[in-house]
């Protein structure tokens, strides 16, 4: 068992290529809320190393609010990715350059499965919801994928003892890598990991 948590430092938003709106003003009544990284949506934490994967079931993701959840996916090659459209509108997701992930209409409630054979990184976009951006990383040596909570905590279960590298991805980048050793006698609890990578 490996347990840990993530927290972000102050970050600056990257400048968009063009103006995204005409007006974005504070409401004038109440102070606006501070921006927070939605860790469950934006971060992916994995263990990479030698050995067989901890689980081989298909990985589930969904399209909700026009965007793939989670927006950062790190999977082992050979894994099957199942994407469910949880929105009330149709979507057409695609990952340019990834075999089997061309644009395909997906009606509300429909599920689409993609078998990931290639290793690499791809951006997933939606032709019908232009704002949506997700990133898919396919690695050959992913042993386990953690479930990240909205508060940044994560955990791995059923990890065989051994030496691994804990990697954290956000979007298209790997923002953190930490070697760890899992033993069989007790759960490994990591200190909070801080990242400063800006999106």
């Amino acid at each position: 068992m490996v347990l840990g948590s993530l927290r972000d430092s102050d970050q600056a938003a990257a400048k968009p290529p063009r103006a995204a709106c005409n007006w974005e003003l504070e409401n004038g009544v109440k102070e606006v809320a501070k921006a927070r990284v939605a860790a469950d949506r934006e971060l992916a934490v994995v263990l990479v190393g030698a050995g067989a994967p901890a689980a081989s079931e298909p990985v589930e993701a969904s399209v909700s609010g026009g965007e793939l959840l989670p927006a950062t996916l790190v999977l082992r090659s050979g894994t099957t990715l199942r994407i469910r459209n949880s929105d009330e509108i149709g979507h057409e997701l695609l990952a340019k350059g990834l075999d089997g992930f061309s644009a395909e209409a997906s009606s509300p409630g429909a599920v689409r499965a993609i078998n990931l054979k290639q290793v690499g990184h791809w951006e997933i976009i939606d032709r019908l919801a232009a704002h949506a951006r997700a990133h898919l990383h396919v690695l050959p040596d992913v042993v386990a994928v953690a479930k990240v909570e909205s508060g940044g905590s994560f955990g791995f279960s059923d990890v065989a003892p051994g030496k691994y590298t804990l990697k954290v991805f956000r979007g298209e980048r790997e923002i953190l890598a930490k070697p760890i050793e899992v033993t069989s006698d007790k759960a490994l609890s990591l200190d909070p990991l801080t990242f400063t990578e800006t999106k």
Partner: protein
Amino acid sequence: MLLTRFWYIILAVIAAAGASAALLSLGVINRQGAEHVGDELRRDRTDLDAILRLEARARLDRIAFISVDNKLGGVLKQAAGVPDRQKLGGLSSEAKDAMNAHVARLLEAQSDASTGAIKPDIAFAVDITGRIIAQLGPLESNPPGSSLATYPFIARALRGYVRDDVVVYDRRVYRMASRPVLYGGEYVGAVAHGYRFDDKFAQRVAGGLGDATVMFFYGRTPLASSVATGAPQVAEVAAILPEALSDKHLQQGERVGPLSLQAGGRAVYSLIVGGAAEAEVGYAVARALPLVASPLAFFQGASREDVQALPLPWIGVACVLLAMIGLMFVYFERDRPYKVLRQKVLTVAAGERERLLVTEWRGAYRALADAINQALDKAVERAAELAPSSKKKANLDEILGPTPDSHVEPYFGFADAGPPQQAKAPSNGSAAKPQPQAAAPAAPTAPGAPQPPKAAAPKVPGPAVPAGVKPPVPAPAPKPAPLPLQGTNDNADSADQATHYRQVFQQYLSVRKDCGESTDGLSFEKFELTLNKTRDQVLQKHPAKDVRFTVYVKEGKAALKAAPVKR
């Protein structure tokens, strides 16, 4: 006529320059027109961006009060964290009622004419997690629970921002505006409403641009448009959408164009401000390009103000000046010489002068005067031929000088002699006719007739000879047949030319001897050759049947004289 011709050339050059300037001006005007249209389109884009920005602000303000609506805020607060869709359904109805009431209040506040622009085409009320609790519009029958959390206009509103956006939702393009919903001093959700791009909206925003076509597009599909009178059609503007969309500048949010349309207009393309730009939602503004097709159209296009702006007095002065210069040249080179020529010809006709003095003119008029002189000469000769013989002889004598008393009229001086000199008139004033020495035996002087001057004919009675000219020397008697050198026409006609030449030769030798001149080296063959040459020259110049030669003494030397024998 040299100046006049040059003036014509100058005028032709000026005319050609004017025509060239007119044609050049067409290109310049059309190019400037294109640049002007390009500038207008750039201003249109700026203006349209401002219009859209202000319109977005109006949409934001339109939902200001519902964002603090207690009923809606309470519903959204209750909905937070409720996973039960059935319970959410009840809350949805309440939230929908609140939104409809708000829309009704908005419509009541507006005049009838603008209600179409007030009622939203779509509206959402979402809880703090971005789940749709209630919505109006084409999907309002959907059950609540779907998320809009990742849409920027919702995500930012949930944090407290007021924001507009243009989004593609369910394959439709909406102009959205969103606000946070406050309840009890907390953010409990957000409300957003949106409007589609339709022709009414396009007409409304195009109203501030004048004679322009405004078209909103989604990819290669026109969404809405407004076409002003005379402006390019939507099909033209849409025809080059693929070209515009493939431009990298458009993808970077910059303007594309002005691009040329099929019918000659120009258009600029721009992506919309908002997230829908990623889906190639944008707008185009097009204007007609007023091309001047021809110089005539160029003049027809001039306004009264344009004409009034012309320096007409100076143009008139220039025209008059150019015309005056041309007329001056015409006067000096054509009218005045013509007038002088006409006057001189009239003086000739009046007998005040015999011929024109060709040196008074130059160029064509000199040639004309010379031609008139030649015509006069011909006329005189022809008149002499047609007149009775006595008269004819008198005229020829007058023109060609005195001739021997014979039908053979002297014409041509020969050898070292000049033209035959006219004999001095006798004292009685009658015209004296020089008599060659070898003439026929002189007729006896009539009794009582006045004696010719002594110097004129000291030995042989007859007409006087010119001063300084020796009297004709009689031909030697024993020499070849003493045929008269100036015999009658019958004799001349009957005489063989060779015989005539032989006789003249013998007489010439005789006279030379009498005058003390040498005859060495003189041969009949050379003599005959010279006579033939002279004869041919005379016959070329005069319509004569034959030419007769006479020998006479001039200034103490033998001389020959040729005279044409008339037909």
